[in-house]
């Protein structure tokens, strides 16, 4: 079943993501695609993740479609102005892509081409709005399209923050995205189910499905690194302790991820697993979570 239909039928939806490599070698992605087929509802393809130049999201989405998966085309506002964004949306439609996820995008200085010019001609709310205009048959300048798009549009939200201002701003921006036409949300990684539940209570009124982000922990160092360096990711100390006590760290990390998924089942409409190099372990996590 396709991603959109799965969400609309009220199924607990599972998405995951793949990050294309730097270069033309697509074997890894093809292997992952083979393993994920039939096990997840949608697969996000990141767009020059962390501002590191690599194979593009659109070509990879097309490749996944050929492998029988339903890709979610991630689009950042960092690298393209409104002309290029709209053109790529037309390209995506023609190539059979059904879902788009609009995001701001990390600043170029965080990536491997720090000297690049940042674009941000549109912001993520405006991109959602633009996609919906194209779904209605018009471009941003108001010109009629010869054949309109039909995208299922999503956006992202950070559900757990370190300041009150950041939390309220996330909710305000989320509501604006809903009003601009976002029909599903994927979140930053969640490790604290209670804190996530507090966010969901505030966001419930928007009436859009929320897929909680899951990043399996690989090591204590990774948890500490994310706490220190990744905005919106907070791994509680008790989980870090569990990891440090475990003999098999990798197995423990998968267990924690599976437990989180179980705990989130009654709180939101699905999960989005960002495996970061562990894509091939996603089926195992799902099995452990009782979702296989």
């Amino acid at each position, binding site marked *: 079943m396709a991603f959109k239909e799965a969400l609309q039928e009220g199924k607990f939806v599972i998405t995951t993501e793949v990050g294309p490599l730097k270069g033309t070698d697509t074997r890894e992605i093809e292997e992952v695609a083979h393993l994920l087929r039939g096990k997840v509802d949608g697969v996000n393809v990141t767009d020059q993740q962390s501002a590191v130049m690599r194979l593009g999201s659109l070509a990879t989405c097309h490749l996944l479609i050929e492998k029988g998966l339903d890709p979610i085309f991630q689009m950042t506002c960092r690298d393209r102005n*409104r002309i290029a964004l709209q053109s790529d949306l037309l390209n995506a439609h023609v190539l059979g892509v059904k879902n788009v996820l609009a995001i*701001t995008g*990390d*600043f170029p*200085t*965080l990536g491997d081409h720090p000297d690049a010019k*940042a674009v*941000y*001609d*549109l*912001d*993520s*709310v*405006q991109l959602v*709005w*633009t996609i919906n205009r194209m779904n209605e048959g018009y471009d*941003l300048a108001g010109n009629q399209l010869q054949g309109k798009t039909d995208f299922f549009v999503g956006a*992202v*939200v*950070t559900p757990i923050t*370190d*300041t009150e*201002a*950041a939390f*309220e*701003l*996330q909710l*305000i*921006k989320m*509501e*604006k995205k809903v*009003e*601009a036409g976002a029909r599903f949300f994927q979140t*930053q990684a969640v490790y604290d189910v209670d804190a996530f539940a507090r966010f969901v209570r505030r966001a419930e009124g928007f009436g859009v499905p929320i897929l909680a982000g899951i990043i399996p922990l690989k090591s204590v160092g990774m948890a500490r690194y994310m706490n220190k360096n990744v*905005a*919106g990711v907070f791994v509680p100390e008790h989980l870090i302790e569990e990891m440090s006590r475990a003999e098999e760290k990798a197995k423990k990390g998968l267990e924690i991820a599976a437990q989180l998924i179980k705990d989130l089942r009654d709180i939101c409409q699905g999960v989005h697993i960002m495996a970061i190099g562990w894509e091939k372990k996603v089926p195992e996590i799902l099995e452990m979570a009782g979702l296989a």
Partner: protein
Amino acid sequence: MVRSEQKPWEEILASLDGEKKVFVLGCDGCANASQSGGWPQVLAMKELLEKAGKEVTGCTVIDFLCQKALVASRLRPLEEKVMEADSLLVLTCGIGVQSVAAMVMKPVHPGCNTISLGHTRGEWQGEERCMECGDCLLDYTGGICPLTACTKGLLNGPCGGASNGKCELAKEKDCGWEKIYQRLKELGRLDRLRRFIPPKDYNKMRPKVEILSTSLWALEQKG
């Protein structure tokens, strides 16, 4: 010189929606020279506002609004009239509007669009505050410019990359959107943030040809 031009009257009036009492402030520097915020424009604005049913609690022109100390000292004798107003309508460049916002705990409405800074930052040195975008948004953002205060220049809220209120790019820099949030919260105007800001007309950021040619030698050539 900082070139500015008045916003369309309809936009100014709409920005004052729900407010009864207004204090009008102009600038005797560049805004006067631009004929967008000197005494003649301030008095004309006062008249327009009164015709539209607003009460103008007072008005004045200061040289220069981009000088924060001057703003404070010149407004002090008029404090009662300023604080009686629901908000201030400021006819000057983006730097001056932000300077007033930083000195007065009242909503501040920009009455002008800044179209060229002419390579100056006014008398508020040290930080870039105005990008002469030609379509001032300070009305929605509590007098703090999202184009300059947010590293990515996002118009509809933060990117989510901030940690403890600091920008993802420069840990020593405050997240512009968190500053905007705090300011609007203090003013009781958080509803301002719910408004969708459509894609910006970046063509307005390009200085007009006639401005580019107003260097001294161009004037001399004409003569």
